Each structure stands twice: as structure tokens, then as C-alpha cells.
């Protein structure tokens, strides 16, 4: 009950660092970032220009850290940031930014705009301007264990079913395993096949793995809401479990921002390097493919395209793994024009999919048109992705436009066609 403007401004003052100072000074107002953002391209509304979404942060930087800005503030030329203003910006910085990072890719002066959005959210969170949807998800993650309010018994249930379906043992809390497998709630609830697929692949490759009963959830709503303190609490669960079980690797699930949270933000949040490696499931699969372990008994015949999740590919750096894997299992893979690091976001990343206001949902449906175009231009009825959140958001989009597109998870697709 203590969020306040004062705390928000203080948080902004705290997060403004040398990169942000240089970005704001380098910005030439060219507007190229607008054309990289699906919220602008699909609506044509200039308020969705990525750099504009940071205007309050820019003003705080100018007023607090530059000579001219301080002068302007004194003589009243630069108005201080107000609570009302932050309230207005809430929809810009949460509903209409999925932190997909496409804007950072195109900036001609090299400004990492999405880096600034992440930092700006610290101030938004501290001042209490956070959408209820993400707030709820964060609350459930901290209090119950996952953003959807799942508890271990639900996971245990999925494990038991997977064991029955595959006839393989799925170890829990086993010390010294090669991989600690993490899941995202989305997978537990909507795509339980993921765990079955993994069990099959691990058994095939002869790799030991385990799940941890006190750290099964990979997602981190603290990152989405933009609060490092809460994000640290959530990520520490995984770090503690992995270190207690003395695993060599932690396997991030397909979920995009879970990978970002553990692999890239994690060590910075806890302030030291990990004692284990963080591996994305696709990286592991690609490694197994190269070793020749992934042999297919059959292939997927229908034409399909790939949706590269932003947090794994563009921002996560797992650039090359997906294509050879899909070519392994699909006869008719059609590369799209904007692929890999140039792919368009599903429209629901960065916490946006947790916001369920009417406006946010309408906007999400509108920006899905960019994906709709990609699907229609390729003329396919199957799209494969490797992020549970992308998949669910795009399924909603497909339903909204009454398309006949089928969405598949890459790991699942591979497992289905894997040699027995």
C-alpha cells in the first residue's frame, strides 16, 4: 500500500545509467523505431512510436541529470512528471509494448530502446501504475508459486500422466542430474505434451534429468511488471533449487520470457554468476541433432512456417537452432521474409498477454494482423513456434479472425515424429 509518485521518480533516478544517458542524447528523432513496432504499423497511431513510450523517463533524465534540463525545470520550461501522466503512460508501456526489441534492432544510432522500457517499468511499478492483470500474475507467482496459481500437486499430476503416456520415469528432486527441467504454467495447463516430449527425448539421448518440487515454474512476472526486487525473489527459487540439487544445467522451457529471466536477467538480479549453465530447450535439441541422436521416424508433410519468439531468438540469442530442427521434421518448411531476429512479435509478450482489459484485448487482436499477413502470404495453415505464451496469444488471434491456422510447439512436433 505504499506505491507513490515519489517512489516511482526515485526508482527512475536510480535506474538511469550511462547507457540511458547516451541513448537519450543520441536519439535523432528519426522515427524509424515506429516502423519496427507492430503497435504502430497495425494502428498507424504515432503515440505508439517506441521512443515516445519513454517520454516521462526522458524528462526525468533531462531534469535530474543534465545542466540544461535543471535550468529548464527551474524556469518552468520543463514540467515535472506527474501521477496523472504516468497513469496515461501505463497503457503505452504495458499494453502496447511487448518488449519484443524490434525497435532496438533498427535504431540507426544504436539505442537499445527495449532496455529503457524495462528500466522505465521499474518506476511504473514503484509508483503503482501497473495493469491489474500483471499485478495479479505477480501476486500469484510470489504467494502461490506460479502466475496461474498452480501448485505442486497439479504439476505432480501432469508428471504422473506423462509417465503413464510414455512409460518412462520422470524423476523429481534427484540430486546430480544433468538437467533441471523447468516448466511454465502455460505448458503445465495447456500443453502437457511438452513434458512427455522431453521425457522421450532425454531417454533417447541417455541424459539424466529431474524436476524440482520447490522450483518448477520458469516464468518470472517480476520481470514483466518491472520490479527487480520481486524478480529476484522469484529467480532465487530456481537458483537455490539448482544449487541444492547440484545440477549441471538448468533447462529453460520453450516459454520466451522465462528464458530471458533466467539466462540473461538472473545473474544480474542475484548479483553473482550461476554455478550452473542455463540452456534453452532448443539449444539442447540442436546439440542432440548435431550428435545424430534426433532421428525421425516420419516427417510432417503439410507446408508450415515458423514463428520465432522474440525473447528466445531476437533478444535471447538462440538464432540458428530452430531452422535446422524444423527442417529435420518438416518436409515443407517455408522460410518467411521477416524471420529470426526480424520476426514480428505475437503481440502478447512482456506481460501484455496477462492484461485482460477490453482495450488491451482489442489492441492485441488488431496487432495480430501482422501475423495474419505473414500466415496468409505464406499460404500455409500450420505455424510452428517454441514459446507457450506466443502460442496461446496467437491461438486467440486465430480464433478472433476465424482462421483455420493450426499452431504447434516445436519440441512437441519433434517428439511426435521421433524414432521409437
Amino acid at each position, binding site marked *: *500500500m505504499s506505491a507513490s509518485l515519489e517512489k516511482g521518480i526515485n526508482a527512475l533516478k536510480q535506474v538511469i545509467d550511462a547507457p540511458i544517458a547516451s541513448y537519450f542524447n543520441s536519439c535523432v528523432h528519426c522515427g524509424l523505431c515506429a516502423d519496427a513496432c507492430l503497435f504502430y504499423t497495425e494502428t498507424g497511431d504515432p503515440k505508439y512510436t517506441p521512443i515516445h513510450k519513454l517520454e516521462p523517463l526522458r524528462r526525468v533524465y533531462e531534469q535530474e541529470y543534465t545542466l540544461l534540463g535543471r535550468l529548464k525545470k527551474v524556469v518552468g520550461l520543463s514540467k515535472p512528471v506527474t501521477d496523472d501522466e504516468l497513469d496515461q503512460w501505463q497503457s503505452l508501456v504495458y499494453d502496447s509494448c511487448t518488449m519484443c526489441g524490434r525497435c532496438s534492432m533498427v535504431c540507426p544510432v544504436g539505442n537499445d530502446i527495449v532496455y529503457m522500457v524495462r528500466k522505465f517499468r521499474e518506476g511504473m511499478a514503484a509508483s503503482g501504475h501497473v495493469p491489474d492483470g500483471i499485478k495479479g500474475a505477480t501476486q500469484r507467482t510470489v504467494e502461490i508459486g506460479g502466475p496461474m496459481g498452480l501448485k505442486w500437486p497439479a504439476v505432480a499430476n501432469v508428471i504422473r500422466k506423462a509417465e503413464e503416456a510414455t512409460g518412462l520415469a520422470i524423476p523429481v528432486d534427484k540430486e546430480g542430474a544433468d538437467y533441471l527441467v523447468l516448466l511454465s504454467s502455460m505448458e503445465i495447463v495447456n500443453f502437457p505434451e511438452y513434458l512427455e516430449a522431453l521425457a522421450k527425448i532425454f531417454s533417447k539421448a541417455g541424459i539424466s534429468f529431474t524436476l524440482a518440487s520447490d522450483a518448477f515454474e520458469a516464468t518470472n512476472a517480476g520481470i514483466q511488471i518491472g520490479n527487480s526486487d520481486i524478480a529476484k525473489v522469484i529467480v532465487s527459487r530456481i537458483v537455490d533449487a539448482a544449487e541444492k540439487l547440484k545440477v549441471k544445467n538448468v533447462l529453460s522451457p520453450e516459454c520466451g520470457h522465462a528464458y530471458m529471466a533466467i539466462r540473461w536477467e538472473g545473474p544480474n538480479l542475484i548479483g553473482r554468476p550461476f554455478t550452473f549453465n542455463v540452456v534453452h530447450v532448443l539449444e539442447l535439441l540442436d546439440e542432440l541433432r548435431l550428435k545424430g541422436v534426433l532421428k525421425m521416424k516420419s516427417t510432417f508433410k503439410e507446408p508450415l512456417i515458423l514463428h520465432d519468439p522474440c525473447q528466445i531468438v531476437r533478444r535471447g540469442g538462440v538464432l540458428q537452432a530452430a531452422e535446422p530442427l524444423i527442417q529435420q521434421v518438416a518436409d515443407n518448411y517455408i522460410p518467411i521474409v521477416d524471420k529470426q531476429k526480424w520476426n514480428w512479435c505475437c503481440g502478447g509478450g512482456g506481460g501484455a498477454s496477462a492484461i485482460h482489459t477490453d482495450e488491451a484485448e482489442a489492441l492485441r487482436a488488431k496487432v495480430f494482423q501482422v501475423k495474419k499477413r505473414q500466415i496468409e502470404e505464406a499460404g500455409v495453415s500450420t505455424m510452428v513456434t517454441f514459446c507457450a505464451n506466443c502460442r496461446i496469444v496467437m491461438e486467440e488471434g486465430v480464433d478472433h479472425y476465424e482462421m483455420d491456422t493450426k499452431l504447434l510447439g516445436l519440441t512437441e512436433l519433434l517428439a511426435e515424429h521421433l524414432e521409437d
Partner: protein
Amino acid sequence: MQGPLIDTLARQGITRRTFLKYCTTLASMMALPPAAGLAMAEAMAAARRPSVIWLPFQECTGCTESITRSHSPTLEGMIFDMISLDYQETLMAAAGHQAEEALQAAMKENAGKYLLIVDGSIPLDMDGAYSCIGGRSNVEILKEAAAGAAAIVAMGSCAAFGGIPKANPNPTGAVSVSDIIKDKPIVNIPGCPPIPVVMTGVLAHYLTFGSLPELDDKGRPKAFFGETIHDRCYRRPFYDQGKFAKTFDDEGARMGWCLFELGCKGPVTYNACATVKWNGGTSWPVESGHGCLGCSEPDFWDAGGFYKALSVPADPLEFGAAAAVVGAGAGVAVSFANRAKKRAAKAAHQTTTLADLEK
């Protein structure tokens, strides 16, 4: 001298091969595609002599000299000979009434087809009385001749921009051709005097393509006036290295360094002197050790003195050092203040819990 040009050239000992080479060179100078050289040669070789009327107004005859006497005998000179120059006071044998009759006859016979060349500016004060020919003012003659011309070539800076007669205080009220004639295509070939090859280039283009070459915003053929003297100057590397002659007889002058500080107007002058050179390619002003006067630019006479440098830098080192000291001082101060502020913000941070997300 009748018949196609190529025959006349042959009689004077110019082979077809030499002529072709010349046309190709001309085409490349005008930045036309290589094939244009051949087209040009064919068109010019077969061309019947186009009627040209040359009207000299308030001028010094330097432009005529430039073309007819600067170097002997060249293809430029000969092509110049090949046109049917029906009226040119300085060159024509006729005088008095005969000359005026020739002018009238040429205008009548070739109405709408002749090329009108003008050199010299046109005085407008006192009803144009400052310069009259055969009892008629220049402006009157120009308007009459322009009416039947296919196109007008303003030869030299006076005709193109008003030139020296227009120099402050402009006692005769001199103006350029384009100040008076608005309804005809006008090519300005400025220069005091202009380069002969520019004249033949424009003529060749006109004969070959039946149109005037592409012009810049001052009406000059882009092919010759597209770049500054400075851009194409062989002394440019010295400018880039900061090596300047300080006087006309110092070490720098002897070493052939840049003449910028001695008032060279090369950086603001568009002309082809640096590439085409003068006197049959022998030399040009900068090569002979004197800066460019900017004679092909409007109002060059009043541009502030031939020996005054275009710009003089403030003592850059002293100024720079002072600015650096002030800048560094301010930078250090701001940096300390900002660090303190950020430290304070960090100290004020209270660890956020779930409850803190609510207002």
C-alpha cells in the same frame, strides 16, 4: 565554306578519326554516355550551318577574343567557323548600313530558327542610351532579335549576370539577358572570359540533340559548371593537409601550396577551368600561381576583394583549449552532482514487496 561540316574539316586536314575523337572527348566532358560521342559526330558532320546571330552589347570583346584568338587553330575555332555567323560586328567585313541590313536579313530568313549569342550586359538607365548601335539602344535590339530566336546563349559574365558593368555603383543600370528576356530558353555561359570548349559543347549538343544541355539553377550547363574549381583543383590535397601559401613569394607559394589564404575563390566558384584549363590546355590561373577570382559567379567584382580569404579561422588552438578546459570543468562538476544524486536515489530505495505494488 558550304556543305557539310565534315567536308570542310577534311579540306583543312582534319581526319574523320580526329573528329570522332574530339566528339567523344566533348561528350565525356559533358558527362554524356559514350555512345553520345558517335551520335554527336554524325550529327555535327552532317549538319548544315545553323544561322547564328551574335550581338555584342556593353562588353570588352574579351569573350570574342577568348573564342577566336586564344589559340590557333583548334577544332573549337573551326567549328566556330562552321556556323553561319550572319552578324558579328567585330568579325564581319561589312560595316554601317550594310551590317545592319545583314542582321535584318538573317533575322527574317531564319526566323524562329537562329541561335542568338549575346555578349555584354544591357544598360537600362536613361532609356538605354548608354550603349547604342546604329542609333538604337541595346535593349531594343535585344528584344527584337530575341523574338525570332530559337534559343539564346548568354556568353560571358556580363551577358549572363551583368558582370563588370553591373559592378557597384552600376552607373549605367546594366542587367543580364535573363533579366530582360523571359520567354526563350537561355543558356548562361559565364566567365570573364568564358571557356571556349563550353561554347562549342553547347553548340554541339544543340546540333546533335536539337535541345539545350541540362542546366543548373543559374542557367549554366551542368556538365561544365557542376563542380567547383576547388573540388577539382590539383592543389586540393594541400588544402586538405592545411598547407597554405601565406604570400605570393613565400616557401608555400614556391611549393605550390593552396592559395585559399591569398583569396582564392575556388571553393565558391563553379567552372571547368581546373579540368579543361586554358590556352589549349596549357595552364590556368591557379596553376600559374594566382588564386581564382570567381569570374564565372554573379557579382564577382563586388565579392569582397580578390585577395581577401573567403573565411579566416579564429585562433582555433587557443579557443579550443579554453573551451576544453571549461567543458571538462563543467563535465566533472555535473558528473559529481549526478553521481551523488544517483547514490541518494539508491539509498532511498526500499525493497519492494507485493504490498508495495498497490497505491
